């Protein structure tokens, strides 16, 4: 067990988008039963909040894990601009084959942000509403520390 003091930076971003929960692998009745209102044919929208957590050594010259301007530019380019005011089902290739549940949206956002070059991506939390939140910390989550 390492006793080093570990530091993380958390930053929250927002976008609004629509989705419809519907699986081609299920019958019409099953879709309706499983997804309920979320299966309505024309979709519906949410104001999503994304919390991005990165870790790394704090640069003594700047006092920072990563420059916020770099993190903001990266997340805005990779996520906010790509997801904001879109219909996930219709506008995003990633959700042609998979249902755009917030679980899948969270994993997709993690996949995109994993490439951030200036710090290590620890986890992504997506709040679909103020009552529903989803977190993903990459593969092997069972080996990592518990969601805090």
């Amino acid at each position, binding site marked *: 067990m390492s*006793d*080093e003091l570990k530091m993380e*930076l*958390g930053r929250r971003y927002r976008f609004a988008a629509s989705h419809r929960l519907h699986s081609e692998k299920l019958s019409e009745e099953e879709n309706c039963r499983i997804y309920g209102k979320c299966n309505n044919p024309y979709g519906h929208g949410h104001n999503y909040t994304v919390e991005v957590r990165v870790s790394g050594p704090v640069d003594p010259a700047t006092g920072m894990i990563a420059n916020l301007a770099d993190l903001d530019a990266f997340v805005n380019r990779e996520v906010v601009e790509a997801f904001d005011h879109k219909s996930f089902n219709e506008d995003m290739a990633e959700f042609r084959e998979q249902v755009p549940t917030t679980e899948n949206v969270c994993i997709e956002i993690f996949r995109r942000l994993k490439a951030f070059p200036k710090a290590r991506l620890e986890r992504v939390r997506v709040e679909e509403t103020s009552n529903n939140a989803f977190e993903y910390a990459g593969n092997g989550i069972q080996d990592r520390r518990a969601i805090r």
Partner: protein
Amino acid sequence: MVYLTRKIEFSASHRYHNPAFSVEENKRIFGKCNNPHGHGHNYTLEVTIAGEPDPVTGMVLDLKQLKEILEREVMQRMDHRFLNYEVAELKDQIPTCENIARVIWKLLEPKITQGRLYKVRLYESPDLFAECYRDGAAG
């Protein structure tokens, strides 16, 4: 194990500036945060203590005691202060959220004698925070 979190709020000003950098570098790296006369935030601090409840009192530690520690170590030191000039522990560091959180960790850790300090999370705004914990401290 039980995790107990106490939250406090303080307001302070700061400025990001490294004397080893040129004027241009300071501006480029720190942006608006480099403005000479500083700027301020309402900080929210969340301190989490981990421990087993005492069989007699049912408490991990007495919240009154934690409140007093936070008042003495954090509020009196940082509330309504200019962090660069008035907080000795931050004197030779850029008072970023990361560095302030680490200073708070170091101030609090030796004072927590019941349970152990598990996590310090410092919000500079609702959308930005730094968090520190011991690497081996599994949740």
